[in-house]
């Protein structure tokens, strides 16, 4: 028995993980990498149904373009083209030499020109953290520009901004070409305009191999945030460049009667993306969840429509027609 114990112990002691784990799956083979990515998207992507995408057909179309000897550039081009069929800017392939993206913003008209604002509306604007702001229309209206949800702002900074405009008739919150960022900043910003804790939507995430397999609805709440609230009318400016977190923000505003969306529909981006890595070391991400409005509709991925449509007229660069319309609404 003693010898048996000793032998077994030495056997186990001298063994290592290499004989216990499955083999290293690293590979530069183009077809193996294609299959890995196709399978991951098939298992987890969240908008096949909404976008009416036949993913098996994509495999039939794109896989024959590759073979065992395809170059890395050829592999990238085929994988990028296949991913762009999803028409989703939360879907990217990241390599050391190129990054794929669909570029939703380019599918619609451009509706934001910073120089027009700077030269003709807010030449002396304050810059408080990531917020650019000033009075408009003889101090009747406050204008706040938030260019990216990637940028943070402190509670004290937002307190200062809202205190400055507390006596205005309304605020214009400009989120045009705000491409998103941290979802955490959505409730942080919108919570300043919310009178009470409000259910504004839901999120569902893929939980099975079927393209319609989703888990239970996760509630999306907005709670009043910070020391100072602004509960007068607010107009939020949006366009095709308003993506991801801005789309979440836009969907959530529908639950608040004091907030109006103006401009063009957002670009979408209603799915939270996850990230992963291919056997050759390249990385990727794609949407795995759906954002639903209070009625359970998942239109956000294709863009949240504005309540009042307006467009920038590029023949006259001295005027921002969308901003003008917002001022008119608030007066």
């Amino acid at each position, binding site marked *: *028995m*003693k010898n*048996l*114990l*000793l032998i*077994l*112990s030495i*056997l*186990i*002691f001298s*063994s*290592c*993980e290499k*004989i*216990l*784990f499955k083999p*290293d*799956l*690293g590979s*530069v083979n183009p077809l193996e990498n294609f299959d890995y990515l196709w399978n991951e998207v098939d298992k*987890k992507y969240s908008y096949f149904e909404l976008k009416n995408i036949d993913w098996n057909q994509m495999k039939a179309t794109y896989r024959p373009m590759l073979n065992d000897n395809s170059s*890395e*550039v050829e592999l990238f081009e085929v994988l990028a083209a296949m991913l762009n069929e999803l028409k989703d800017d939360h879907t990217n392939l*990241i*390599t*050391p*030499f190129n990054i794929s993206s669909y570029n939703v913003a380019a599918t619609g008209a451009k509706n934001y020109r910073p120089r027009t604002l700077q030269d003709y509306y807010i030449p002396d604007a304050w810059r408080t953290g990531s917020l650019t702001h000033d009075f408009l229309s003889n101090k009747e209206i406050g204008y706040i520009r938030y260019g990216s949800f990637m940028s943070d702002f402190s509670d004290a900074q937002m307190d200062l901004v809202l205190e400055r405009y507390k006596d205005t008739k309304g605020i214009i919150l400009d989120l045009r070409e705000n491409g998103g960022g*941290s*979802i*955490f900043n*959505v*409730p*942080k910003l919108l*919570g300043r305009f919310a009178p009470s804790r409000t259910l504004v939507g839901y*999120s569902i*995430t*893929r*939980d*099975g191999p079927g393209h319609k397999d989703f888990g239970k609805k*996760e*509630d*999306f*709440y907005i*709670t009043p945030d910070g020391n100072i609230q602004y509960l007068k009318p607010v107009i939020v400016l949006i366009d095709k460049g308003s993506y991801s977190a801005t789309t*979440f923000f836009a969907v959530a505003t529908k639950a608040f009667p004091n907030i109006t969306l103006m401009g063009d529909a957002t670009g979408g981006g209603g799915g*939270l*993306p*996850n*990230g*992963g*890595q*291919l*056997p*050759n*070391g*390249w*990385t990727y*991400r794609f949407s*795995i*969840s759906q954002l639903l409005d209070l009625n359970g509709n998942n239109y956000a991925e294709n863009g949240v429509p504005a309540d009042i449509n307006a467009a920038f007229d590029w023949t006259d660069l001295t005027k921002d027609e969308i901003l003008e319309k917002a001022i008119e609404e608030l007066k």
Partner: protein
Amino acid sequence: MNNIIKLPLLILILSLSKNSSSQDHILLPQIERYYPTDYYTTLSFGLTNPIYRDFATSPLFYNGIGLESSSASLKRSDARERIFEFGFGISAQLARVPQSNYIQSGSISGYGKFDIFYQELWKLEALSDAKNNTKIGGAINITQNIRANPGLQNNAIGLENISNLMASAQWTRDISRTEVKQLNLWLFKPTLKPVKRELRFLLNVGMLNFNYRPGYAYSYDSELNGMDTSPIQWALSNYKWSLNGWRLKTELEFLKYLSNGNVKGWSYVWEAAHAPGKFEAFQMASHQLKYTFYIHSEKR
């Protein structure tokens, strides 16, 4: 688990459990009567070579080097042993990316882990004599990993808990020098005094293997609710407990007793775990070289 080790493990576990049950009623009364008990507080530092693979985000192994440290309260007698240990480790990990013939890609990950280890051992008289001491028992090993890999975009953070109820076996061989010994090294003829030394081998085999792993597809959707979301809820909202997989741990330690009752130990620790979770597996292993200082605090 690989069939190569399934059978030997089964034999080991069955043989240990048989001996254990037959010894219980004889051994326990003798412990208190005849064996002095030493109490130690231990401090350990070591170099580690962790390896992991998280199939939820990548098919690639991540390999690295880092530091580990731990502290324990140890109660040890000839007949019984109990240890409660808390440890942590940090390391930098590089993905084992295959060679590119264009531009090489690479991923770096920060890897931290926290360990809690509790173990009770009892002497197995049948496998012990004047020079050999064999003990068997059980252990609880709880490991919480925290990984950060910015290249994985929205899944940059990886968290998993691996908790195991383990069967334990320990063999200690007395390799003391009992007489004065003089070496003849040509110009030098050092005299070596008697010293108490031991070689200790510990084996832990997971019997009940729990793991807390991400759900089918994971994103941090709790952040939708912003500051209403607690950090724990944010991090773990899509995670699920599973009872599956395996875990093995072995340690070989050389112990040298000092005249003041303290002990120095040098050890090699190997550990491996496979946590299938509900959907995609996590695997980890580590090779660790460790120095331990045992501070003798009390003897009864």
